[in-house]
């Protein structure tokens, strides 16, 4: 698509914020238009990275699950971790990547709760690794306009 999606979102967002909003009467409507303009610039930021961050994260989670299998004591959870580790993204369509990401992050929650119940040094190391991945996951989703 040309002009690029990002360019269109940036231009439309800027027009709403800098041209349309000031022309609307003060109050709720003006703020809503301005907010929509800012929102579009954030959508642009997310659009640009939407495939890459999901592909990167899905791969990171599968690798983590592969390493976790030896630490996990619950056989059923270990089996599902193994299956997830062996899975792959068949398409780069955002909705499918998102679906896979949601399934992997749901399994991560279960894994994390399980690991917290274990005492071994290997479990503590895995816990650290999970937290590192969670930190990375927030950085992948961070916006330039973030309050901090």
């Amino acid at each position: 698509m040309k002009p690029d999606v990002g360019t269109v979102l940036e231009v439309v967002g800027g027009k709403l914020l800098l041209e349309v909003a000031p022309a609307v009467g003060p109050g709720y409507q003006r703020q809503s238009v301005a907010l929509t303009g800012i929102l579009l610039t954030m959508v642009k930021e997310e659009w640009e990275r939407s495939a890459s961050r999901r592909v990167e994260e899905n791969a990171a989670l599968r690798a983590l699950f592969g390493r976790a299998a030896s630490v996990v004591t619950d056989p059923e959870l270990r089996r599902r971790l193994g299956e997830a580790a062996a899975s792959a993204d068949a398409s780069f369509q955002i909705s499918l990547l998102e679906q896979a990401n949601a399934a992997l992050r749901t399994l991560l929650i279960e894994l994390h709760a399980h690991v917290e119940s274990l005492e071994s040094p290997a479990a503590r190391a895995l816990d650290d690794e999970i937290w590192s991945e969670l930190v990375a996951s927030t950085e992948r989703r961070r916006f330039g306009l973030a309050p901090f």
Partner: protein
Amino acid sequence: MQELEPRIAAYAAHRMPDATDVRVAAVERIHGGASRETFRFRLHWREGARELERRLILRRDPPGSLIETDRAAEFAAYRAFRDSSVPVPEALWLESDSRWLDHPFFVMEEIVGCDASPQAIVAPPYAQHHDKLARQKWTILGQIAAADPEKLGLVGALPEVTPGNAWWHELDHWTRVIDEDELEPQPIIRAAIRRLRRAPPPPPARLHVVHGDYRTGNFLYDGEGDIRGILDWEMAHLGDPLEDLAWSINRIWCWARDGRVGGLTSKAEAIRIWESASGLRADPGALHWWELFSSVKGLAIWISGGREYQSGSNKDPVLAFSSIWLSNAQNRAALETLGKLS
């Protein structure tokens, strides 16, 4: 907005039997918290030979919102703190009958000549008053904490809890909101919830009034750096006063993006002012628990707003904006509280 004018006037006439020629003008929707539709208007009426006018605020329940709250509790809180050292607008009428304006609502005084914007407060002309604003902001919060809910008539008006289960009540409520409204898995906040449950905070010595959303953005300030009104009591409840203190210093409210809490002062100074005004001590361990809880609550609110927007029940852009803008920041705030951010 014009269709609202005669309907509000009809309601006002119903509430003011001695008034004649009741009219409403200049109805204008304003941003006033994401939980209710907020309108300002001018009420005109006659009492005998006198012509009177008053500027008022209408807060009406929307079909969906960031926060599903009890307007009666909000109204009760406004009334309770009227004529106290905590500045609040006068709350006039509470109406649960939807026949008047389609949804329940309440009406209160408009405090004029003020700003509430958290973005405006970090810039001139307000920036020169930051020390004063910070002193007032956390002094008032300390006064809310020092108040006796029994004497204020709020016991019975707000949900019943005990000092021992207040933390559980709040954590359980907001966890339920996340359970019901999340649009995607939330591994960070789920870990935070497990940690909070494993190590509850020490109970407060007694129950206190908790404003529930005490932050820059929810009070009115003027050009002299004076706080003129504490707003948005929709999440007011009884509980641990550290809940309010922790929420007020939540990392996502660092509007100046420089680490100053509420865009005004250092975290240590905010706590010092609050302790001085409340006569209470902010136990660091307990405060840390409530800081982490604040991220759970915050994320629940952003998730809930995102759900409303996505479902189409409320298409106010502030819901989408808040959910998109603040969800990630709230997760980062939780990581910071947990010492996971380098």
